[in-house]
């Protein structure tokens, strides 16, 4: 039985969605709790993928495919919870700021955050500052994530953060995107700067004490 956990992890490392779904179902059929096979099997796999990505043994397309395999396993285990959503590590609302329509980086980050156990609401692109706040309230979010790819739209990140601080809202703020730097994040008072998807997961884990 211990082997099924190793199989689960391996299916993620191998980025094999079909296999991940089959193993998830087999685990459930054998009486293993959904949270158990996720935490001790599939999550171990995605954590290993993260380490392999950091060390340069896995590249971005493989990371995305592993995230996709994780999504497949999660679908199977969530379906078994009979209407109760699996407990997420945290809730995040994430979008590309107003005036900006670049979203490929955001898509990568969202896929990887979900693969790492976060519930993520994709706000889309060209999102006004007020919408970040409104959706964070609606979704009872822990984190507001803002992506900006243009030098002229980075200021929108500052606007959102200022509102969070001025109104004493409970959300942590994370910024990212090509023109952003740690120094920019510090300047505008963001709680974290995510350099890439893997870094985003680590910073959000740290912010939420996971």
């Amino acid at each position, binding site marked *: 039985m211990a082997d099924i956990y190793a199989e689960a992890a391996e299916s993620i490392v191998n980025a094999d969605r079909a296999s991940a779904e089959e193993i998830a179902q087999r685990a459930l059929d054998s009486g293993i709790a959904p949270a158990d096979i996720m935490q001790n099997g599939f999550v171990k796999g995605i954590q290993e993928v993260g380490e392999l990505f950091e060390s340069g043994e896995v*590249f971005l397309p493989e990371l995305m495919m592993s995230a996709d395999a994780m999504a497949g396993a999660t679908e199977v285990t969530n379906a078994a919870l009979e209407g109760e959503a699996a407990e997420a590590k945290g809730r995040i609302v994430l979008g590309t700021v107003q005036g900006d*329509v670049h979203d*490929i980086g955001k898509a990568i980050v969202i896929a990887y955050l979900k693969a790492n156990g976060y519930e993520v609401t994709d706000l889309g692109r060209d999102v006004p500052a007020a919408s970040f706040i409104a959706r964070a309230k609606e979704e009872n979010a822990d984190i507001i994530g803002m992506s900006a790819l243009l030098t*002229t739209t980075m200021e929108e990140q500052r606007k959102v953060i200022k509102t969070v601080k001025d109104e004493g809202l409970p959300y942590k703020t994370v910024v990212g995107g090509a023109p952003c730097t740690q*120094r920019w994040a510090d300047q505008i008072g963001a709680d974290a700067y995510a350099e890439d998807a893997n870094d985003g997961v680590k910073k959000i884990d740290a912010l939420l004490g996971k």
Partner: protein
Amino acid sequence: MTVRVEWLSAAELDAVYAEALSILESVGMRMKGAAVLDVLRGAGAAVDETGVVRFPAELVERAVAACPRDLLMAGETSEQDVVLDGSRTFFNVSGCAAKTLDGATGQVRPSTLKDLRDGTIVLDATPELDVVWTFLTATDVPLERRELVEYYTYLTETAKPVVFVDCPTQTEHVRRIFEIASGDLERFRARPRMSLLCAARSPLEVNGELLDVAVEFASLGAPICVYSMPISGATAPITPAGTLALLWAEVLGTITAIETAVPGAPVLACCGPGILDMRYTTMSLGNLESTLMGAASSELGHRLGIPVHNSGLSTDAKHSGVQAGYEKGLKLMTAVASGADLVSGGFGFLDSSSTFSLEAIPIDAEIAAMAGRMARGIEVTPETLMGDAIRRVGIGGDFLREKDTRTRVRAGEHFVPRIGSRLPFEQWLGEGRTEADAAADAVRAALAARAERGPRLSEGQRRELADVCGIGPADVA
């Protein structure tokens, strides 16, 4: 003679072009919200309710035929004029960054109005730099004022042609700026001092509002830099050939929209593809595949009779070190040898054009000068063969005392570096100076010269411009 290198055969170029036409006909481009959609519909394009335009090949080919081959970007006087006519490569800066590598501290920090002003001054003083794109964001100027303050700064600190990289939000003010800079709109049309960049969003989209602004400016005679910047593996296929097909679909689709609305509008095909580095998830412009795609784009553009730009001076290096040297050198030589009309990337830029360095400008100028010298090749004439001199000097003589040696050295027969050192080793060691020191000296000299000369444009022009741009005391040096 001029050096030319062939990267793709005629058949290969035709294959890329055919694929681009096929993409435009079968998939189309989204130009949602653009008023020009009605014009395209009237010209035979299929436009659906989501703003996707499918272009018949004959419409695209008609637009290509309408593009003028030669393009004038005018300076403050004709001395600074840039005429893209295929006879040589001109050089540009890049745009638009929000980070500066501070020469004093070595730290990367948000860019400021002072960085923008100093950068424009040094670019203006750099003879190898021909065109100034709006290259830096003054992050210390409030957003609501920033665009116009930046325009004022560019126009009062350089006499060279200017290209607005970001879509102006205040087009009425920009028309007024055209008038002030040129005298009136008729003179602007004859000698367009400013151009506009109109960039697609890969894959296969262009902002409708930006496209309409481009059409508006094109109708005034402003050259339009039609820009495609797809990223191989992310917003474009992983292969260079596939990325080229997508890039040219975007360029041709946007050009067709502009030429259908304003036939004969001067346009520049700007080809700036990148790749997504799959190891570091960063966008790379300093890579070899982008270099090849840029070169091939120059060939295809010229085959179609359109002037071409590419980002031939890009580097992924974070500082002006070894990587910057070899990447910029390799890329630029390729771009120039392929006959690119305008090359950006550009002077002073690092880290895939995301970081600006004042001290990198003189170094990039040297690389550009070297590439330009290489592209001129070797002049072979009876005079340059110097048969008479060889016979006169004879066996075992020397050419040092020949009059031709003296006059031709003074006339620049051999390229003389301003940044690189050819000192004997001990002397070089004794001087203790590096390329960075030489570059810093050049920057200081340019800034000092500006302090003595004062700003560009006449006092009257500056006053009118300041009024239009809402300039306050804090906005000027």
